[in-house]
């Protein structure tokens, strides 16, 4: 694809043009991705790209030994390596392309999604939450390069046990003389994956079933929705406890069970959306044009019903992380020694008066992560709802 010259655009519509106008934007972005965008006033995305770039560079420089070793390491080290390279590449390519192709990008229409992104990027708290979340996922994926210690190594039980914060152990050690910071970092992978995968499962199931119920109506709708009612009326926690008590708790079971009990609310949302969308004339137009039902559901209904689902999913990830912590409190969380934030908080709670750092740091990690997800969710809600956008 040809790249247009850097021209002065007559009427700046968005930051694309603004960053393009800045002389030397392309050169700048080649060195420090995100900086042109940052200077162009898009501080959120700009900062994200810049921080990613700098952070990855820092890891490469400071932990080169581990990075090199990762090529021959286990799968999680390889994942970390891939993340590192992808993040570097992605932030650079994104920033450079955007500056270089500002003109071309401007002639393309602005989709609803683009509008939502713009509206979202104006919401400072939401963008801050987004940065935290992206940062968290990066940190989680890159943990093998970042963590100061092995999360499961027990140092000397007599001298290193339950030691408070120190240079060696920035967040102290736990009852087995393990490094709390390292466990916190590894715990991030578990907690975040639990949230992400469980919500992924539930959103997929919920969206499909909700769309089917809403589109076909009648008996199918009745059957699906009665089942939804049943699952929804039941206190979810008790269902979870029962199921987890039956099987031996493993991380996969927890993820599956969380995912399989969360979908009804998504199904309800999607069904409601689909029911109202069906009355919309563009869906009738699709029917009038003789489109097959599958196409109408997948191309016309679901994309338009997705906005509230995305919001619900974002909020759902946060809720799931909290719920996992609750299960850990009841001893049904992720199995040791695998650290998850929930198990760390639960395990450290009896020591709140003695070794406060045991449950406080993972607790705060949960709070700030979930808070970020909620802020992003709220931001998305505002950004995705055209009525609130104006």
């Amino acid at each position, binding site marked *: 694809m040809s790249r247009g010259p850097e021209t002065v655009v007559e009427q700046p519509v968005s930051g694309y043009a603004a960053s393009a106008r800045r002389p030397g934007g392309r050169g700048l972005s080649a060195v420090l991705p995100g900086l042109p965008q940052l200077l162009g006033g898009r501080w959120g995305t700009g900062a994200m790209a810049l921080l990613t770039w700098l952070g990855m560079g820092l890891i490469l420089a400071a932990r080169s030994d581990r990075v090199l070793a990762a090529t021959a390491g286990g799968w999680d080290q390889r994942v970390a390596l891939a993340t590192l390279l992808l993040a570097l590449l992605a932030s650079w390519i994104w920033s450079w392309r955007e500056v270089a192709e500002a003109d071309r990008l401007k002639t393309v*229409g602005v989709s609803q999604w683009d509008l939502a992104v713009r509206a979202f990027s104006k919401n400072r708290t939401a963008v801050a939450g987004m940065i935290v979340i992206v940062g968290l996922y990066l940190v989680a994926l890159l943990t093998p390069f970042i963590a100061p210690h092995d999360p499961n190594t027990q140092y000397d039980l007599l001298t290193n046990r339950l030691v408070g914060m120190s240079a060696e152990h920035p967040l102290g050690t736990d009852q087995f003389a393990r490094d709390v910071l390292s466990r916190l970092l590894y715990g991030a992978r578990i907690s975040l994956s639990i949230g992400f995968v469980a919500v992924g499962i539930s959103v997929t199931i919920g969206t499909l079933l909700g769309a089917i119920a809403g589109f076909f109506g009648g008996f199918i709708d009745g059957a699906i929705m009665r089942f939804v009612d049943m699952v929804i009326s039941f206190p979810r926690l008790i269902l979870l406890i029962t199921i987890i008590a039956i099987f031996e708790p493993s991380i996969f079971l927890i993820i599956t069970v969380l995912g399989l009990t969360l979908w009804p609310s998504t199904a309800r949302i999607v069904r409601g959306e689909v029911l109202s969308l069906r009355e919309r004339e563009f869906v009738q137009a699709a029917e009038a*044009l003789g489109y097959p039902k599958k196409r109408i559901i997948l191309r016309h209904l679901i994309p338009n019903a997705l906005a509230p689902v995305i919001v619900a999913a974002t909020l759902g990830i946060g809720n799931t992380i909290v719920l996992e912590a609750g299960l850990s409190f009841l001893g049904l969380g992720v199995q040791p020694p695998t650290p998850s934030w929930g198990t760390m908080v639960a395990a450290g709670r009896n020591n709140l008066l003695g070794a406060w750092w045991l449950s406080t740091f993972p607790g705060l990690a949960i709070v700030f992560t979930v808070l970020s997800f909620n802020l992003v969710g709220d931001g998305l809600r505002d950004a995705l709802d055209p009525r609130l956008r104006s």
Partner: protein
Amino acid sequence: MLESGVVSAKPHIDRSGPPLLSVRGLKKHFPIRKGTFGRVVGQVKAVDGVDFDLWPGETLGLVGESGCGKSTTGRAVLRLLEPTDGSVHFDGDDVRALDKEGLRKLRRRAQFVFQDPFGSLNPRMSVGAMLEEALKVHGLGGPNRRDRAVELLERVGLRSEHVDRYPHEFSGGQRQRLGIARALSVEPDFLVLDEPVSALDVSVQAQVVNLLEDLQRELGLTYLFIAHDLALVEHVSDRVSVMYLGRIVETAFSHDLYRDPRHPYTHALLSAVPRPDPAGREDRERVVLTGDVPSPSDPPPGCPFHPRCPNPRKDGRCSTVYPGAETAGDGHSAACHYPYFKV
């Protein structure tokens, strides 16, 4: 854009041949459901026995107040809503008997243009994607569908660079052009136009109406034009049907209908239309109907209009016997026991 203001003569319409669309006794009732088990406790008789014919190349206007069933008629004809009763024949085929494939074929030949320029376009699809989709589904447009999409855009008076834009980036009038382009993409013979301009400003209305007239002339299209604006309908239609409470109360050539309304409802309706002519406002005869339109779930017996009818000759027959629509020799029919005639 054609803004010449040239009067273009419409080609002659041959009404001796078979009609393109023939509707007889069309009914569409919506069940009223209640309770958890969805018991049907009544019927909204949105369309309650409608007959009309439509010959190739002509425009039939369907007017009436909100809730009279005109939109439902339009949708039921194309089976966007499944009719409850009656028959619809399109080009000789029984529309109600069509199978899935037959329906798909029908939808290539008969298309729909919607009222709401904001709701009738998928907000998440670019214009190009929208037009290409229709072509793709019906296997039209050959290898280069995008070129065909651009062609369609230009045909309805938009520019080729609009092809990558999204619906919300267009004004109301432009969106209505997009809706027309989408309907035209499958190269239909017949369009149901459901209040295509009523959401638009007056000046833009005229643009769209002109476009529709140009298209009809050039492509030989047949229109069912649904609207509540009587003046507009008169302007675009060859013949006009007036609906009230799910039934057609009067049908006539448009010139006749406006000069010589025979049904008391049509008469009242016409007199209620405000005229942009202050000069004659004091001495114009005006019939102001009393009361509201009855509920279509419980229409009055006999002539549905009788409770509001100002006709001085109204009598007991009106409240018991439904007056059939007799077509007079001039093609003018009115469903009234005591129609008005110009003296």
